[in-house]
């Protein structure tokens, strides 16, 4: 049962990821991206990581794709024309990707991973919170600085300046 759900989600994720890459209309790409993010969140639930699944939905679906759709609406005449989305190097790009993919699958499959295969205990959110506040408190604080920097940068760069300014 678990395996079946995994395969459904996996096919959904991979299939919509293909659509994201190949769609002519950028808005459709964004919608398929949402589907991919949801399927990946579902897989997190299968891995007993409900907290990260919720965060995935909140950040990726709720923030990132919404931001992207805003940007699309600000910068594109929607649905008006389907633009050529592909650059001149499709064939070498596809070739490189294919070789890379085969190599990565070989590398992943040929390796005996030193894993135990057990279940993470209950109280998972508590454990993550404890780690964030003890061992990993420095990266946690640094991430808050990253967000501050992004905030400042997005305002400075995105803001419309008064016209007539030459600087």
């Amino acid at each position, binding site marked *: 049962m678990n395996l079946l759900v995994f395969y459904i989600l996996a096919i959904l994720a991979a299939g919509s990821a293909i659509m994201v890459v190949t769609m002519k209309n950028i808005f459709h790409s964004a919608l398929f991206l949402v589907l991919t993010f949801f399927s990946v969140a579902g897989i997190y639930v299968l891995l007993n990581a409900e907290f990260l699944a919720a965060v995935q939905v909140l950040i990726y679906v709720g923030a990132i794709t919404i931001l992207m759709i805003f940007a699309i609406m600000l910068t594109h005449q929607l649905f008006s024309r389907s633009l050529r989305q592909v650059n001149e190097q499709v064939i070498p790009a596809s070739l490189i990707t294919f070789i890379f993919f085969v*190599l990565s699958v070989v590398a992943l499959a040929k390796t005996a*991973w030193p894993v135990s295969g057990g279940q993470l205990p209950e109280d998972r959110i508590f454990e993550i919170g404890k780690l964030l506040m003890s061992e990993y*408190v420095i990266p946690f604080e640094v991430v808050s600085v990253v967000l501050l920097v992004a905030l400042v940068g997005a305002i400075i760069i995105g803001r419309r300046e008064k016209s007539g300014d030459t600087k």
Partner: protein
Amino acid sequence: MDYSLLIPEVVLFVWALVLLLYNASAKTENPRAIGLFALIGLVAAFVILWFVPDGSLFGKTFISDTYARGFKMIFLLAAIVTVIGSVDFASKHMKHTGEFYSLIMLCVTGMMFLASAGELISLYVALELSTISLYILAAFLKKDLKSTEAGLKYLILGAASSGILLYGLSLLYGLTGSTVLDEIGYRLFLNEGTTIAAVFAIVMFVAGFGFKLAAAPFHMWAPDVYEGAPTPVTAFLSVASKAAGLVAFVRLFFNSLLAIKPEWVVIVEIVAILAMVVGNVVALLQKNIKRMLAYSSIAQVGYVLVALSAGIDLSVTSMMIFLLAYLFANIGAFIVVIAFSNATGSDNIEDYSGLWKRKPSLAIVMTIYMLSLVGIPLTGGFIAKYFLFGAAVKEGLYTLVVIAILTSVISLFYYMNVVRIMMFRPAPSADKIALPWMIKLGLAISVIMVLLIGIWPGPFYAWGQLASTIFHF
């Protein structure tokens, strides 16, 4: 736990916040005062850094050792010299100077955390803090399409390379079950024989760091970003972002992956050769001085990789000396570019003709920087190259050293081309070029340091050697 280890970073961060808040409340902008304020913060952090002891916090998430502090000095010095040289540029071309300087300080904060990162999560997050600040800084002149496009290119390739790097990190985590660098090294050492996944992860690391270092064949963003970004940002980027890439690269490869050194040496050697050849040959064709310096920086990173593929303690020592000499020579050269383009509005190498007539001192200091970048004796660049190639010779990497020396000879042409144009071409106009005192100060500091490292390398060698003692070869 000794939280005093964090004081330099905290001082810098708080200083940047104060600058942001002050700037948000101030009615008018005074770029000079803001620049000086930022400078005081950076110098204060630099002074405090001398008194920080050894130690580590939260397991190994934050390590303060001689290596980390050596690199922190490099980052702070790069920022200090850049800020000194940029005040004039900022008051002329920029809005939001308060945000500009606080972003530089936050970027340095990220790099300092990166230097101290002893564990993958803090390494990644600190790396992102420094690079995201740099994306914004590259796109800072938003009225200038070139600058905005430079920011976008840098961001796209930077984000993609972070993704590649992270994929490698995730495989390393799966192989060892730990995110602590020492622990990873220990477990890789215990594992009998290397797995194909480890080699795959190494390829990802080299590609990811290759982008950050702008080493060929991952250099394609560098010329455009160097050309498009505001010149002070280019100056900072060319030195600090390379140093940031190197600090993490060396910590990861010499601390965690030393057990599987035979697997990565070949890959690093290939990248080193490509970087030296591509950088030096393509630099010959450049008309724009910022692009020329971009390709030269690609070549310079190749020389460092030559030393690093030796994988001995002299590699680390020589890298530290190189970064210090390169810092002053390269940022100094960019300050000359700032001064020249402020006066004439041009970045073309041809327009430098007759600079000797228009401002002799500017031509002389530029010549010294160029000589140092070539590696002529009595300059810091010579000492740096001597030790870099010495490390490779010590390990018997003669082919690499021969290629490095041959490509150095090629580099003589394009560096000396600038000198030839400045000294021997007739000046297009007799207008003198005036230098503001901040720019004079920046130029003076860099020239003195370049010559000091070249003439009296002893203390700098000792400093570099101290940094290499933390690795167990």
